[in-house]
């Protein structure tokens, strides 16, 4: 039954071409304009979660006058419930490096950097082996683009692009003011393309299939497929590559345990969708976007505990720089505890909702801005669990 409802795809993890770096080689024969046109045509949007059109990001970076540009691969996969980049890097690192190399050629960068999550240190030897092979092929292809791996140290905030740059530059991982955006001032204050691991693989897929074939997957707003990390109350947790634009009830039919109460789409910084809204919820940029994390909760779970857990996470993982995020997270956490204990009246939740709204519009970066997503969607949909 599920075969009819959910389209499983095998692009990302599909086997390598029999010749090493074949797609890269054929792509490099094309002009930059041509490559960009294809990516634009494909409708590819960033796979990190925010969904910025990839072609535009590359174009803006290429157009910024500068003596140096950089390509950065964000492999600081830290969103709770997300583990798909890990799988991609373990299974198809060659595709990631190829995607970065294409980007380097298009924007005129000579240097690529992969910022790897601290906990993924174990995969460095394998990645280095693949990198050696990449560099050899790049040399043969006459491509002046080297890639280097930089390690993160375990801070969630360093997945935020500007904090990531700060971290790579040796500073404290704190987000910068925007504007300027990375396309004009990124790593070392130079124009930089920073994309998610999966985005780079998608670029390679578009180069291999051509935009028309690629576009057949997904919807108008959400082209292509997406790797999902499915976890929680499911009999079949794991990594799945699925077409974008599916409805959540189909997803739950496939992965739920028959007693699914809610799905947290997009990790701790994403949205909680309750059962009654499964039908009307589309997974994609037109509906609820996700960087890949799908956490399924059945009726045995306390949504208060779930929210408490998220808030504890944010309270600790905020960089602490801006007021709304640093103090707001503490207040939200202490606030729901106080309501639960009866130290504050239930109406205090309204106060906290207003606070989360303020955090959403005033926090300096995406972390603080997105705490309100899970907070308001859980509190609104499961208010009784917060109080009793």
């Amino acid at each position, binding site marked *: 039954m599920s075969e009819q409802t959910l389209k499983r795809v095998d692009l990302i993890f599909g086997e390598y071409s029999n010749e090493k770096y074949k797609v890269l080689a054929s792509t490099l024969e094309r002009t930059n304009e041509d490559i960009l046109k294809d990516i634009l045509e494909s409708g590819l949007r960033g796979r990190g979660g925010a969904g910025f059109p990839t072609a535009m990001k590359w174009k803006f970076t290429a157009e910024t006058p500068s003596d140096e540009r950089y390509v950065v691969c964000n492999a600081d996969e830290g969103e709770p419930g997300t583990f798909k980049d890990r799988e991609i890097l373990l299974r198809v690192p060659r595709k990631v490096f190829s995607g970065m190399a294409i980007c380097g050629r298009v924007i005129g960068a000579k240097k690529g950097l992969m910022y790897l999550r601290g906990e993924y240190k174990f995969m460095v030897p394998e990645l280095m082996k693949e990198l050696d092979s990449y560099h050899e092929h790049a040399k043969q292809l006459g491509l002046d683009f080297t890639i280097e791996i930089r390690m993160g140290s375990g801070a969630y905030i360093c997945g935020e692009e500007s904090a990531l740059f700060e971290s790579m530059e040796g500073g*404290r991982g704190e987000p910068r003011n925007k504007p300027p955006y990375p396309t004009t001032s990124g790593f070392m204050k130079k124009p930089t393309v920073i994309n998610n691991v999966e985005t780079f693989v998608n670029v390679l897929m578009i180069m291999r299939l051509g935009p028309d074939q690629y576009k057949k997957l997904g919807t108008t707003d959400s082209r292509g497929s997406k790797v999902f990390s499915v976890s929680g109350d499911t009999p079949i947790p794991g990594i799945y590559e699925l077409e974008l634009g599916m409805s959540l009830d189909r997803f739950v039919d496939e992965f739920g345990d028959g007693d699914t109460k809610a799905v947290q789409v997009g990790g701790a910084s994403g949205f909680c969708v309750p059962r009654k809204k499964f039908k009307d919820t589309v997974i994609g940029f037109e509906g609820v976007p996700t960087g890949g994390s799908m956490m399924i909760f059945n009726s045995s779970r306390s949504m208060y505990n779930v929210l408490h857990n998220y808030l504890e996470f944010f309270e600790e993982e905020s960089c602490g720089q801006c007021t709304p995020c640093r103090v707001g997270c503490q207040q939200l956490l202490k606030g729901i505890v106080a309501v639960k204990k009866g130290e504050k009246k239930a109406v205090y939740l309204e106060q906290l909702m207003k606070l989360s709204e303020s955090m959403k519009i005033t926090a300096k970066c995406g972390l603080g801005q997105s705490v309100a997503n899970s907070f308001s969607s859980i509190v609104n949909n499961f208010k009784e669990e917060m109080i009793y």
Partner: protein
Amino acid sequence: MAKNINLTIDGINVTVDEGTTILEAARNLNIHIPTLCYHEDLCVAGNCRVCVVEQEKVKNLPASCATPAAEGMVIHTNSMKVRMARKHIVELLLSEHNADCTKCYKNGNCELQGLASQMLTGDHLFLDLVPDKKYTIDMFNTAIIKDDSRCIRCQRCVRTCEELQSVSALGVAYKGNKMKISTFFEHSLFEVVCTNCGQCVNRCPTGALIERNYIDQVWDAIYDPNKHVVVQTAPAVRVALGEALGMATGKIVTGKMVAALRRLGFDSVLDTDFTADLTIIEEGHELLSRLKRALVDKDPTVALPMATSCSPGWIKFIEHTFPEYLPNLSTCKSPQQMFGALAKTYYTQKRKLDPKNVVSVSIMPCTAKKFEANRPEMRSSGYKDVDYVLTTRELGIMIKQAGLDFEELPEEKFDSFMGSSSGAAVIFGSTGGVMEAALRTAYEVVTGREVPFDGLNIVPVRGTEGEVREASIKIEKVLPEWSFLEGVELKCAVANGLAHAKTVMQNVRDGKANYHFIEVMACPGGCLGGGGQPIPTNKEIRNKRKMAIYEEDMGMPVRKSHENPEIAEIYKDFLEKPLGHKSHELLHTHYTPRKRY
């Protein structure tokens, strides 16, 4: 020409240069957007978020301090959304802040308190987080106290320490709810590279960083009938004290300050400027003797360039950062410490007092002076040479405590002796001042003529904020005993702010500069921008103080240190000669190499 940007703020169309922030554009229109982490002297942080505004067609509220104005922007600084967000932010800050205002040294002069009263915070919206926090108070330092419970983490201090002073004693540690401003391995400020310059204190919006105050100890001494309390006042205090007492910036209040000190009950009101003049004589001779050793005796061990030693922030900085250059520092004590040593020797002899009954107090624009007075080597009189150091701010508080109407006080004169001074001493308060004062004297000693500058104003060495000033003066037609200096180009450098001092020292170390004499003042603009001066501070305020200092110099009947009659007297009656035995015992010191970590 910068590109023009047109935008609308609160319904008013305005054109600004490209690169102007929304905050600056609003200020041009006299629209006041509240700020906390923003400070004119520092780079933009954009982390407190108090200055958020609403931009039409944009979902989030941008921080006006960090967002450049863009063509066609429509901004609202006081919309419903903005008011709610701003109130939330101030409430959040208060919930993490030890808001026990009546126990706070900054009560009444706190930017957070000001915002709270503006927002009518009343009953706090959110839970009080303070009881769960394990805040620490660093009380070990003799100069600066750091109270984390009052910190709002705006990082002004961190930026000050790094950008203006390139010391980086303060930094950010931990993240999330544990994020705090801390030091290397969370040691006390006493044990790290902190120079005690107090620039962070000047910029802290709350009471998290304050000077250690000695007000009560000074009152106790004043009221003790057995104690004879002498007070000395530094040159930069007299052009800034008025600010602490509600007067306009840049007013010279020397006479009123003397009157106030007398009414507070000090037994003798004296002037650090006297020992500033003395410093010039000693330091000038030291420079000439080093030059002679270098040029005539060809002594390879002589340390040149010679650097001034009046600024205790600078002394601690060089001890930590360039310890190999300690021999280059003039061995002269700072005027404060020369005064202290003389107050319990020369002064007591002449006044027939027992030095053990004398309490010596100094009023300084400086927090580092508190540390300096507590150095173990500063006891050459046999007692602690300077017992208590008060900042300009502390004196302001004492004057208020005593209920004096400062503006209405008559102008009075310093007591003598050790109360007379020259214009050369007054300009010690501004960057370039020590250099200029030294040149006025040294040139005349060597050539028998006044320095060849109009009105004795050696403008080329007058420092400017934010740069290193270099100058050279050719010495010609010298007196016979100084013939070795004939035709020598005396090369000088003047730096203010430790970041620039670092540049100068790096240039010296790398052989890129060939100076004879370097003047360094640790604070931006020199002592007039010192860490003990009234808050707030910015370039405009410091400039007004600077103009007042040079005005005071011009109005002095004596403009050169060696013409101060009390200087001639002290050498005749007590010290005998510059760099003599007594001078070495009382007026010169040595330095301690310190580690960076």
